[in-house]
């Protein structure tokens, strides 16, 4: 445990040093404030809209941005150390491959968690104050849940990136794979589902489609955040089909957590097999 923390602390300090933390925090804060301020532009006015509207539009944008940032942060985790020549030396130290990998994951996860909390949290406070909604507990709860699920979404993709970084032998290949992963989960997967739905002319739609959505962490995130808002459920077709006890927000968050553990476990397994 102690060893994992040593590795994690080093990764986190690297994140502070090369301004990853600062950059991600700023991007998130600007995004939240900007969306909130210009969110109502379509209806002919600018100014801070409600936190609820902001969360819904933020969630749609976060789906694109957070996986990308997470993949960029971690795709070279192990393969980068290998190319640098430090991996060989590290493995001769009293630290197991699993400890190294989990330590790296923990460090990167902390970078993303802190940035998300500071970026979105700070912006949320500002929006709340400026739109006079400070008192609503429900909204703060929803916003807190948004931050939590956004962090979990980021961790999913950090775990996926760790897996990529132990699968390949070169940094450039890891980068390419990371990009493909992003395309698959963020764009292609949903298009395919939509295609299936259209070809079946709506007949085949139903519960099984909702279950398929669970195979994509970005969709789980989307469902989790939209499910919290009854008003939103009405418009969004995707959320409307996902009903039942499994599709409650905290259940969905637990599924996201599962999406963190699976690739990470796979990465540890691969890494241990790869080095010896």
């Amino acid at each position, binding site marked *: 445990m102690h*060893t994992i923390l040593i590795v994690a602390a080093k990764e986190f300090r690297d994140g502070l040093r*090369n301004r990853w933390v600062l950059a991600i925090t700023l991007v998130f804060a600007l995004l939240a404030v900007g969306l909130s301020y210009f969110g109502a532009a379509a209806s002919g006015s600018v100014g801070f809209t409600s936190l609820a509207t902001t969360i819904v539009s933020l969630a749609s944008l976060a789906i694109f941005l957070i996986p990308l940032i997470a993949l960029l942060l971690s795709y070279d985790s192990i393969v980068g150390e290998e190319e640098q*020549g430090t991996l060989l030396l590290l493995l001769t130290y009293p630290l197991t491959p699993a400890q190294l990998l989990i330590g790296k994951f923990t460090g990167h996860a902390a970078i993303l968690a802190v940035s998300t909390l500071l970026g979105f949290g700070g912006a949320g406070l500002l929006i709340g104050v400026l739109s006079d909604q400070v008192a609503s507990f429900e909204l703060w709860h929803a916003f807190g849940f948004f931050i939590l699920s956004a962090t979990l979404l980021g961790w999913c993709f950090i775990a996926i990136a760790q897996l990529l970084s132990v699968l390949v032998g070169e940094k450039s290949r890891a980068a390419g794979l990371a990009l493909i992963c992003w395309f698959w989960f963020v764009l292609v997967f949903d298009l395919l589902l939509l295609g299936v739905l259209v070809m079946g002319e709506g007949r085949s739609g139903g519960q099984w489609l909702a279950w398929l959505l669970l195979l994509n962490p970005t969709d789980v995130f989307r469902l989790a955040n939209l499910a919290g808002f009854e008003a939103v459920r009405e418009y969004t077709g995707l959320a409307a089909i996902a009903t039942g006890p499994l599709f409650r927000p905290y259940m969905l968050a637990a599924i996201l957590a599962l999406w963190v553990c699976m690739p990470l476990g796979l990465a540890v397994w691969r890494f241990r097999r790869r080095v010896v």
Partner: protein
Amino acid sequence: MNAIVEFIDVNKRFGKVQALEQLTLSVQAGEIVGLLGHNGAGKTTSMKLILGLLRPTRGEVRVMGKAPSLQSSHEHRRRIGFLPENVSFYQQLSGREVLRYFARLKGAALPEVERLLERVGLAAAADRRVRTWSKGMRQRLGLAQALLAEPRLLMLDEPTAGLDPAATREFYDTLDELRGRGTTVLLSSHVLPGIEGHIDRAAILGQGRLLAAGSLDALRAQAALPLTIRVRGRWASQDWTHGISAAGMSVRPVNGRQLEFTGPESSKLAVLRLLLDVPGLEDVDVMPPSLDALYAHFNRAPTHRENSSCTPS
């Protein structure tokens, strides 16, 4: 017997490449052993086996009584220091930060970091980023990290590669100091001159096989390599050289004033006595067979392996 490292009939194969073949070798506590051979002879593979980074295809490797692996106990692996060939570090960190990170991982106290930086002569540069350092400085940082937590077994892969002569001399001083403290050292090299005086025993590897092992004196005797004596002087005739030929050495003129005698080591004293009586002699130089010559000899004659493959001291 107090063997720190034992190879028992070890084979290591990478696909079709036989990296090590029937290697049997042991390193005793407190010994300094040189692992000698060309690139690809199996030196680095042997070290990786000791570190548990690789597992033998066949045979057994034991380090301090245990089969090494990446899952070995924390305490066991703490006692081993390693300097890899072409060591490299985190470019964006300073030397002190790098060494502190490694010290934490190894459970060494932080004051030791300062002491080691001082010892390898990097204290002044410690706060600069490793990116700006020269190859020699990185190599010295590599040595410093290998010395963290006072290892019982130290493995140095090509430790003097990239070091300037002064740093090389300092490195050998460190080696002699470690010997005084009873540290077992296994070092590999393909540059032979220089390490001769600092190793207790040499193991000569070629194409994955142990060609010979033993103390340098024993290896010299075993190879029966000729001794060379070079003399310089002013003499009218060279009739006196007949006596030396009779003592068992051949004569070869180098130039007008220099001669070279080559022959078995056993006739050294007899020849020297004769030489001292030669009028006009100005200088005598006795050159024992160098490790280079030894190495060339064993590499050429793999048959020697049979009677020398296992030479525990």
